[in-house]
């Protein structure tokens, strides 16, 4: 752990400039991830710019019936919001399935999607890791891979993104409001995170100094019938082995519309477009759900590992998706 400077600029713009100016500067929000990384030596910033007081801590209604969630809104407050619970159950369920009560009281809307992978080698500075130290190699390949990716990985990195909230936001077509050194912009949430490719040091498309100011969730009537299902190695307080965020609209025994995103399988929250396509217009049956899972997993490549590897994620994800969609269809009231 190294000494670092701590700054609380007067506003968001100043914060962005303060970080943009210094290559070794980082934003600090709830600190539940970055402070661990300071302790572990995974992150060694020279300057921490605290942004919790500089972005909104409010959840506002958008004219289209959606919500704008300020970056400083705590995970626990977001989960408890009655509008979120009514309009986006999938998000209201994803949030409390993550971390613990204490952590969620600290964790923020801006920080959560930007938390870094839980790959044990990434968190251990005595092992090589391309994400932490580009070019040093990937210790996870051939190591402990139970928690690693089956989709979209590369020979440089097989890490998964650990956030639950982000999986729900990917299913909901959320939009990310960003304030950068060059001004404002909006990024579709599904484009925020990147695949590792040959640059696993980047988790997202954000540049240095880009600040998330809010996340917009558009109106999506379909989402009132939605669900987040997380499967993990203990009953609570563990990261997902796999997770499914799904919104389902069934009419006359047929899938009318659907949104699916998968967690625990890739370097980013995985929007399962292929599965959605396979389902639209298909009968709302286990066979269709199974076929959808198959479509989503066409390119799945499991990892071997001394811990048994992660091939189990393929049947696990299939089972989880089928059971989530079946339950959602069971809740279905529309005829």
């Amino acid at each position, binding site marked *: 752990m190294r000494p670092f400077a701590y700054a609380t600029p007067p506003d968001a713009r100043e914060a962005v400039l303060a970080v943009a100016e210094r290559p070794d500067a980082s934003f600090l929000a709830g600190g539940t991830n970055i402070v661990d990384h300071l302790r572990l030596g995974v992150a060694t910033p020279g300057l921490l710019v605290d942004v919790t007081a500089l972005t909104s801590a409010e959840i506002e209604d958008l004219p289209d019936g959606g919500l704008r969630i300020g970056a400083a809104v705590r995970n626990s407050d977001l989960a408890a919001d009655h509008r979120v619970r009514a309009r986006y159950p999938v998000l209201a369920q994803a949030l409390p399935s993550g971390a613990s009560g204490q952590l969620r009281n600290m964790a923020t809307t801006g920080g959560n999607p930007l938390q870094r992978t839980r790959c044990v080698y990434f968190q251990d500075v005595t092992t090589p890791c391309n994400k932490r130290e580009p070019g040093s190699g990937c210790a996870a390949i051939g190591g402990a891979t139970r928690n690693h990716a089956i989709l979209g990985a590369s020979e440089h990195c097989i890490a998964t993104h650990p956030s639950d909230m982000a999986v729900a936001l990917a299913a909901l077509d959320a939009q990310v409001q960003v304030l950068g050194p060059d001004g404002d912009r909006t990024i579709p949430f599904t484009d925020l995170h990147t695949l590792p490719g040959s640059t696993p040091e980047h988790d997202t498309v954000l540049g240095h100094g880009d600040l998330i100011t809010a996340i917009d969730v558009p109106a999506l009537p379909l989402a009132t019938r939605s669900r987040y299902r997380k499967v993990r190695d*203990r009953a609570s307080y563990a990261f997902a082995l796999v997770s499914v965020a799904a919104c389902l609209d069934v009419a006359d025994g047929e899938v009318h519309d659907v949104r699916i995103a998968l967690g625990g399988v890739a370097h980013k929250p995985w929007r399962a477009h292929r599965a959605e396509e396979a389902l639209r217009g298909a009968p709302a049956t286990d066979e269709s759900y199974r076929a959808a899972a198959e479509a989503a997993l066409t390119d799945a490549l499991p990892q071997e590992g001394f811990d048994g590897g992660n091939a189990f994620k393929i049947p696990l994800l299939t089972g989880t998706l089928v059971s989530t969609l079946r339950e959602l269809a069971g809740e279905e009231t529309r005829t």
Partner: protein
Amino acid sequence: MTATLEPRAIGRDLARRDGAAKVRGTAVYADETPVADPLFCRIVQATVARGRVTEVDTADAAALDGVVTVLTSTDAERLASTDDAELAVLQGTEVGFRGQIVAAVLAETDEVAREAVDLVRVTYAAEEHDARLAADRDDLYTPESVNPTYPPDTHEGDMAAAMAEAPMTLEATYTTPMHHNNPMEPHATTALWDASGAGHLTLWDSTQGVHPVRQTVTQIFALEPEQVRVICPFVGGGFGSKGTPHANVIMAALAARAVPGRPVRFALTRQQMFSLAGYRTPTIQRMQLAAERDGRLRGIAIDVVEQTSRIKEFAEQTGVPTRNMYAASNRRTTHRLAALDVPVPSWMRAPGECPGMFGPEVAMDELAAALGIDPVELRIRNEPEVDPETGKPFSSRNLVACLREGAERFGWAGRDHRPGVRLEDGWWVGTGVAASVYPTMRMPKSTATVTYDAGRFVGRIGAADLGTGAWTVLPQITADALGVPVEDVDVLIGDTDHPEASVAGGSSGTTTWGSALVEAVREFRDKYGDHPHDGDAASGSVNPNAAEEDYAMSAFGAQFAEVRVHADTGEVRVPRLHGVFAAGRIVNPRLARSQFLGGMTMGLGMALHEQSLLDPRTGHVVNHDLAEYHVPANADVDDLQAHWIDEDDPYVNAMGSKGIGEIGIVGTAAAVANAAWHATGVRVRDLPVTLDRVLPAR
């Protein structure tokens, strides 16, 4: 036979005497001992699993403001004894395992020490290491003895013939993974050498035994016992990992030696505990059962393969419980070790019994299923009349009573024994049972004094309370020995200034220290009668138990689990876990229940979660924190119950008590694995029972 005390305070549901201080946060632990102007120690650990340190560049670290000194094997003081390689801290350049201490920093603040260790650059000549345990290695060896002093192998009758001839045989291999103790309070020490140069050392150490720590430290630093004081009023858990001093204690003393007169604090981080504080070896257990059609065992055998560290041997006695659990005239138990380039294994709650009752108790379940016999009944049919190993009668053995009482409470009767046939709301449901056992141990050495002062009796003994309740239970015993109200008695523990006490290990504390206190009281009453004067004092020591010549002594138990396995995902839940134990007289029901429930919860973790992932490529545990090394969360623990049957055992000790700290973890994992089979039809022989292991079948 000893005359058991008439229980007045014994058996009472008294609250923990140290409870309020702990809840209020005023109980002082080793690392927060109030001392003036402490320095802080942090360590650099080897990043190779085998080889030599060729250079330690300390220049940048030493130059850092606030750094007092950087210790390496070149400049650290030579220790008087380096016989124990685990404790020979900074005594050479050889690296025996990844994570070994190769340098240390002493600084004015913990933050500076932490920064400085990152600046120490160590160069190694790495050698090829070997950290892969397998049963088919060609270099397995037989240890001279297994922990603590059991013979490694036993042969009774002709097991091979039994396997060849019995109408029903079963042969299977079971494994338990590497486990780490992970007490909440990390290993921590505050160390102070006196400034005068007289060589007096005070250690405030988080330990399961202040006197054992003193003994080790006096040997290593060539000191007289009077020169060392070890103090430890409270311990935030140990589970065996603080039973023998590890390298951290020596590190703290060595660091403080460099700055006489200034206290030094040294605490391991959670990650460091995975390489420096002991662990339970992974075990590979090949089981053989030879049975009659009615389930009676003709033979039982366990062949164990496990690991130790190349630099120091620790041989877990995994096969030992099979020696006296069930009646079978043909028996074989063997232990083979692989000496690997890995951290040094050590005690973890119920060494031997805990892993060693997994294979046998799942094998018994498999046998019951193969024969179509109720698994409870199968165990009852194999109940021995006398200890199968020694031929001695048991001082008391109530396994059958525990099985019956447990079956009754759990609602076992009428169980449909077929596996994989109960689907409720999308979950496969099953039930399972397994037996528990733990030997009743008494340590050879412990002394106590009793003093009378101003209407109160004060006992003194260097015992340890690692959360088990010794602060509360020892006064109960002393009060009954004296025949006075427990409110009039204090017993002071946790300090080498008190008379010498044995380690809090082997569930022997209450037996050993309680016996010493009872002896001290006897001495006291002999000398001063019923009307003592202020200042009257007497001392007494634990005696060997003559009854051990004639009787085998163990506690027994039975655990019943209900398991649900999600039909789509394989998630495993344990909605019910009920244990019934027969462990002599229960000195304090409230504290005993905590011990049993704590053991069972840890057993639940062993069943479903715990697994240290030692990467064979690097030789270190990669899931070395509590986010990745899972122990049960609250949500995993549902209807958990511990019960006991009243057991009147006049042979064990004056209290009539048996040890209860460890038995709760024994058998739990087997009960859960057996229930998971009953739920799904999938037999999991390798712990933990994770969802991927039960998922493929359905």
